[in-house]
């Protein structure tokens, strides 16, 4: 302890500096020694000169400092004017445009696959909604039309979304252009291939959709029951045309025309709507059923039947009234009588 006390007292600035300098020198020498060890070992092991290049290579890769040439000695505009021949399409393409051209030509780049996928997706979208509806029909009616599936599928692929045909039909719509393009195909088949669309299907369709047939395209409107483009009159006409005069009318209609009915009868009307319409083609409605018969399989008679329908809207309603009252009693039995009669008409 004494020694240390002595050292404390002897500590002044100059001495401190001397000590510091000594420590510093030791440190530097230590660093040098460390480096020497490294170098000696590198020499002994033979890797000391490895990172040097031989003089020949040094000459080859010397930095070039001439005008018109870069530091590697390459000429700047060498590839500007050159043209290449595309191996795929045998066209002569400018060198700078060659790579993107080849990408599109071969269809193998990132961009071209993206474009193709988008095209497929958009065409699928057009076809998918159609196929959903048509498939149901085809499943149901396989025994009728074995080949219908194939035909239907062919038709789908034929219908190009960009074809002029499609735009034509779109133009002739009752102003419904954008949203209803898909179901129109389905409803086209409703008019033409009425056999594939059973009465049940049709009834369900008419209870959920507007269903008014456009004069130009003979297609059914697939908007909601309250679609603003068609009047209730039109909807009623269509329903009467397809399902007979005592067809279930769209709800709005029913409520509007309550004047002629009793409240009880309107309620019966509502309940009938739920069952999918017991469209009683009762003998009293033979006149109207005849006209509907005419318009059955072929779309061309639509206009005629519609004219007749227009003359008799009230009549059909009045005719419906007794039908309704009778229906109250006949509730359990409805499906049996109408369906065979409809099929009779078809046959």
């Amino acid at each position, binding site marked *: 302890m004494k*020694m*240390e006390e*002595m*050292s*404390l007292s*002897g*500590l002044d600035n100059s*001495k*401190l*500096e001397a*000590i*510091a*300098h*000594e*420590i*510093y*020198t030791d*440190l*530097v*020498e*230590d*660093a*040098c*020694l*460390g*480096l*020497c060890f490294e*170098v*000696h070992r590198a*020499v*002994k092991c033979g890797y*000391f*000169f490895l990172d040097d290049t031989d003089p020949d290579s040094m000459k080859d890769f010397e930095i070039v400092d001439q005008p018109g040439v870069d530091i590697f000695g390459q000429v700047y505009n060498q590839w500007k004017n050159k043209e290449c021949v595309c191996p795929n399409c045998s066209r002569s393409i400018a060198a700078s445009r060659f790579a993107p051209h080849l990408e599109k030509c071969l269809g193998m780049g990132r961009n071209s696959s993206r474009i193709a996928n988008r095209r497929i997706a958009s065409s699928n979208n057009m076809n998918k909604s159609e196929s959903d509806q048509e498939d149901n029909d085809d499943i149901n009616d396989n025994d009728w039309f074995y080949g219908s599936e194939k035909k239907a599928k062919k038709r789908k692929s034929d219908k190009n979304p960009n074809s002029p045909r499609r735009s034509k039909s779109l133009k002739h719509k009752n102003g419904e252009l954008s949203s209803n393009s898909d179901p129109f195909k389905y409803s086209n088949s409703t008019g033409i291939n009425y056999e594939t669309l059973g009465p049940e299907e049709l009834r369900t369709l008419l209870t959920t959709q507007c269903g008014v047939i456009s004069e130009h395209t003979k297609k059914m409107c697939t908007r909601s029951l309250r679609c603003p483009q068609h009047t209730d009159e039109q909807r009623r006409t269509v329903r009467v045309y397809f399902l007979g005069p005592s067809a279930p009318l769209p709800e709005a209609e029913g409520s509007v025309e309550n004047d002629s009915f009793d409240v009880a009868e309107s309620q019966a009307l509502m309940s009938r709507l739920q069952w999918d319409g017991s469209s009683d083609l009762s003998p009293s409605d033979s006149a109207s059923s005849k006209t509907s018969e005419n318009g059955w399989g072929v779309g061309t008679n639509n206009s005629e039947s519609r004219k007749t329908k227009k003359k008799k809207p009230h009549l059909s309603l009045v005719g419906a009234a007794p039908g309704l009252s009778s229906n109250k009693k006949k509730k359990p039995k409805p499906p049996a009588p109408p369906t065979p009669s409809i099929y009779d008409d078809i046959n």
Partner: protein
Amino acid sequence: MNKDAQMRATINKKLIETGEQERLKELLRAKLIKCGWKDQLKAHCKNVIKEKGLEHITCSNFDDLVAEITPKGRALVPRLCEEGTFSKNKNFPCSVCQPLR
């Protein structure tokens, strides 16, 4: 003289014991690499070896190499590094002495 020697010995001892010596060494080494001293000295080594010949270096005493390089190394240390280490060196003896007081 004895006192000084004793003092130095004590300080050195303390340096090693506390691990301060190691720390200072590492610090200095890092500084020297950063300022490029190591690369410079290595290039100098290459020149020396090229002059003397590779075999000579490996066969001859290691001390020759050291003797050649060390003075150059000492000379090459940049001023900044020197000063930085200096101040740290000064701090150490003080920190050693204070607890003793």
